[in-house]
C-alpha cells in the first residue's frame, strides 16, 4: 500500500493527502470534466453524471468555510474529547470533514461560514502497527 519506506514517516493519513513529508502538503480531489463534481479518493466513474474516465486530479484549496459541525463529548476509548467534528466547503470546490482545532469547543465560538484554513501536522501522535507516524489535515480559524 504505502509508497514510502516502512518505519519512516510521515505517511499521509488518507491517500488524497499529497506531499506528505514535504514543505507543501495539500489535498487532491478528482474533478469530473463532464459535470464538475469533485470527489475525494480513487475512482474511475463520476457518481453524479455517470461519466467514465473523465476525472482529473485537481489540487484543492487550503481555505474554506465551516458548513456544519458537531462537538463530540463521547467517543471511543482512548480518544481525547471534546473535539469539533467539522464539515468544510473548500473555496474552489470540494467538501471535507475533519477536526477543527485552535478554537475552544463551544458553540458560542463557532459560526456557520466562518473562514477556515486547512493546516497540516502530525496525526495526534497516532502511529500504525509498524511504528510509522502520519501527517493529517486539520482546520483552524483563518488568520
Amino acid at each position, binding site marked *: 500500500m504505502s509508497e514510502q519506506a516502512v518505519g519512516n514517516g510521515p505517511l499521509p493519513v488518507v491517500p488524497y493527502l499529497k506531499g506528505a513529508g514535504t514543505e507543501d502538503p495539500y489535498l487532491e480531489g478528482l474533478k469530473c470534466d463532464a459535470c464538475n463534481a469533485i470527489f475525494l479518493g480513487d475512482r474511475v466513474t463520476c457518481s453524479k453524471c455517470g461519466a467514465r474516465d473523465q476525472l482529473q486530479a485537481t489540487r484543492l484549496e487550503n481555505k474554506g468555510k465551516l458548513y456544519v459541525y*458537531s462537538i463530540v463529548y463521547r467517543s471511543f476509548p482512548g480518544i481525547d474529547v471534546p473535539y469539533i467534528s467539522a464539515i468544510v*466547503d473548500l473555496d474552489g470546490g470540494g467538501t471535507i470533514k475533519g477536526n477543527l482545532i485552535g478554537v475552544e469547543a463551544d458553540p458560542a465560538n463557532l459560526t456557520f461560514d466562518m473562514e477556515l484554513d486547512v493546516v497540516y501536522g502530525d496525526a495526534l501522535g497516532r502511529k500504525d502497527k509498524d511504528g510509522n507516524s502520519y501527517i493529517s489535515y486539520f482546520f483552524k480559524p483563518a488568520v
Partner: protein
Amino acid sequence: MSDVYVVGVDMIKFGRFPEKTVPQLGSQAALMALDDAGLTIQDMQALYCGNLGQANAMVGQRILQEIGQTGVAVVNCANACATGATAFREAWMSIKAGVFDCVLAVGVEQMGRGLLGGGGGGEGIPKEGLLGSGTMPAVFAEAGMEHARNYGTTFEQFAKVSVKNHHHSTLNPKAMYQIETPLDTVMNAEMISYPNTKLMCSVNVDGSAAAVLVSEKKARELGLNRAVKVKASVLTSDPYSDRDLVMPDVNGVTRIAAKQAYEMAGIGPEDVSLVELHDCFATAEILHYENLGLCSDGDAGRMIDDGEVALGGRIPVNVSGGLLSKGHPLGATGIANIYEVCTHLRGEAGDRQVEGARFGMTHVIGLGSACGIHILEKVA
C-alpha cells in the same frame, strides 16, 4: 396486480435479552404475528427475514428451525437501519408479483451497548477524532446542524422531540422506557455530540417484530375485519448531492421516497393520520417533518414548538415513543413501526390511540443510505 394486506402483526416488548439467541427472539415475534393472523407457519409460503448483526448467518432459516421447517423460500436481508422495512417490502413484492399469496416478514436484532459507527477501519491509523467523527450521534448532530444553519433551529427545539417521544412511550407498554423526561432533564443530560444529549439518542435494545402479508384473494378468504391495506411500499437509495460522500444526506433519500409513496398511495400528507418516522436522534426527527411533507421547509421548529406532532396534535409523530424511547433494534425497527401504525388503524392502541386514524405512514433510514416508506390504510 393484487393489493397486499397485513393480516397479522406484532412485536415483542423491546428490552435487553442477552440470554436469548437472535433466532429465538425472531421466533417470538413470528409466532405472535401468526397468532394475530389466526394462521400457522404451515400456511406461510415464504419468509423474508431482516437482521443486521448476523447478516451472514442464515437467521431466517434458524427461525424456521425453531418454529417449523416447512421447506419454503427464505430470504435474509440486511440494509442498515432500513433492514426491517426492506424485508417487509420484499414480502410485499412477492405478493405483488403474484408468486405467493401468504408470506411472513420478520425483523430481529440483538444489540450491544454503546456508540455505533466511527471506529475507523481501513489502512493506517484510526481516523475517529482525527478526521472528525463517524459516530452516529455526531453524524446526525451534523445533519441537524444543517437545519439549524438553514432555519435557525435551536438546541431546545431538538430537545423537545425527546420530551415528546419519551412522553408518548409512557403510554406504550411495549416500549423500552416509560419515563417522562422534562425539557431540562433532556437538555442537561450528558452531552454526547452537540446538540444531541444522551436522552436525544435512540436506545440500543434487543427486539423483534413480524407481519403476515397476504394477497387480496387470501385476505377475503380470511375475512378483512382487522386487515390493513398496504397502499404504498417504497425503497430508495441516496441520490447524488454535493456533500453526500462526506456528510450522509438523509434528506434527499427521504424526499424522493416520500414523493413516490404519496403518488403510489394516491394521497397527500394532509390525509395521513399518524407517522412513525426514523428518530434515531432527536436532530433527525426535525428534518423528516419537512422531508415527508408534514410541513413546509423551515416550519419544523414551529411544529415541535406548537405541539402539532404530539399525540392529540394535527399530525402525531412517533406515538409509540419512537426509536428514542421505544428503542431501536436495528433490523426490527422497520417492522415494529408497521406494527404501531397497524395497531392504530385497527383502533387497538389503547391510551395512545390516534382517534379516527385512516392512513398511517412508516419511515426508516439506513445510513449509507437507504430509505423505506410504507403507507398503510384502514380497511374495515
